[in-house]
């Protein structure tokens, strides 16, 4: 893969990639998990991983969320909306993102890296940093716009400050 600077990539593609990332964090922060699923491509092998940087650096495969196919991504919504409902103290999230790298891997697939941090606010609690990390994404652009072919949220936060309900 030859790295292509963002400014040599078609402006329209960059705009679609940024719109996808904005749609992703909007879906999560507004707890619209069906919209979250819709940011992923419909192919069977579409993947979402949320993994500690400590594991990733050591090539240890265990993740916090290991959704290596489309069905698992859909099942995650079932966890949140059906299985865990009523058992946890709910919290608001606000994602903050900054695209740092973008390159064209092939005709319609882009490799994109984006810093992220999440501020969380538990019900009746104060706001705090939940996690900071890097999204390493493969984004596919076709007729229906940009979608995640795979999304990997690699979090630096060695020890998470509490249990996790919502995807990063």
């Amino acid at each position, binding site marked *: 893969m030859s790295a292509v600077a963002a400014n040599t990539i078609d402006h329209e593609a960059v705009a679609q990639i940024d719109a996808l990332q904005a749609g992703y964090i909007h879906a999560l922060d507004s707890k619209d998990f069906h919209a979250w699923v819709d940011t992923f491509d419909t192919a069977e092998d579409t993947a979402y991983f949320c993994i500690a940087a*400590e594991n990733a650096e050591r090539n240890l495969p265990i*993740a916090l*969320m290991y959704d290596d196919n489309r069905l698992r991504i*859909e099942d995650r919504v079932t*966890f949140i909306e059906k299985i865990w409902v009523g*058992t946890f103290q709910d919290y608001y999230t606000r994602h903050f993102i900054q695209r740092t790298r973008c390159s064209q891997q092939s005709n319609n697939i882009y490799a994109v890296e984006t810093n992220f941090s999440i501020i969380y606010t538990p019900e009746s609690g104060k706001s705090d940093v939940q996690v900071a990390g890097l999204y390493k994404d493969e984004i596919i652009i076709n007729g229906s716009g940009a979608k995640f072919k795979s999304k990997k949220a690699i979090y630096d936060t060695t020890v*998470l400050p509490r*249990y996790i309900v919502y995807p990063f």
Partner: protein
Amino acid sequence: MNDLSNPGINSQLGIEWPKNMNEVPKEVFVRTDLFDVEQKRIFRGPEWHAVAHVGELPERGDFKTYTLSNVPLLIVHGHDGEHRVFYNACSHRSNQLETASFGNKTEFECPYHRWLFNPEGELIGCPNSKEYSPGFKQEDYPLGQPRVDSFYGLIFITMHDDTPPLTEWLGEVKPTLIKALGDDGRLRLLGYQKVSYKSNWKGYNDNDGYHAPLLHTAFTLLNWQGGDGRQYMDMARGHLGFEAELKRVPRSELIQDHSLVDFIGDEANMGSRLIQLFPTLVITRHLNVYNIRFAIASGPEETEVHYAYFCHEDDDEEMVKHRIRQSSNLLGPCGMVSMEDASIFHRIHIGSNTPGNAIFQKGVKSFDKLEAEIKQNDETGNLARWEYYRKVMGFERALA
């Protein structure tokens, strides 16, 4: 003096334990002044504490750092093949020697005065030693070590001279512990999930491990209520063992990717095993998940838990892949079955600031006697541990 055989009465802490053996004073979850006493009597007292499994350090030179009762530890797989636990402090002026949480090194150098240690803990270099104190000998300054012992690859330390031998301390629960450690201890690390809970260590401990399955909607939805099982306690040390069958159930419509709850292997090994060792260690083998939960009582209101997941050395590629996929999503702080456990740790801690006692109910047959073996869904499995805690802390039981 053995703290345990003669603990003395802790009347100055002003806690009178309830007469009924199924009651625990809520204040013990939230009284911050107990924490220092617990450090002395329990975490630095005559108990064994697991700090690593050899499966986390497969290569020679591999190391891991860990903390027990604020004491920094360095666990190293030596070039001679032996695993050792050192105090993670230079033998010169006690500068913290290693700051990384893991790695592989051929030597450890303290940057302060450039003292150099090999993975076996020997001091192999110290510049300008001719100017050191009279009679200074390099061989007199290896890294310090606590007492160490191991059981099926699980490495324990104790910082107290009177701790009994490890196998004696483990007591009754060894058979389940062996199963939970893969039958022969030959486990290999797959990775960690690390999280901090806003809960006292006893609140974490009272609610992690085994508890009645009503909390777990997933169990109900997956029809996992059947099967025989038992809980048994080591009354001398407060340990708990749990074993239950898991029956194969018709595939639920609830989830689409059933590999999350599929079991691969011998029917005889399909089940749930769990060990809780006093004070904080939880180990479970559930379906195809091997999980050791190293819990650190980092403060009166904070417990850090490192969920370490393993495969077995004999697993083929397909099995390893299955364990990775099941382990990541099933039983951790974001697991389908267990996320709600984590939320309970917080809520128990908050709720325990209210007056009175926490009262255990299910399975209680007597108010003045504990049973060593109970049914799998009884909530009394924690009571042996509470009784042991009460004795170690020197709290007297009320007469009426």
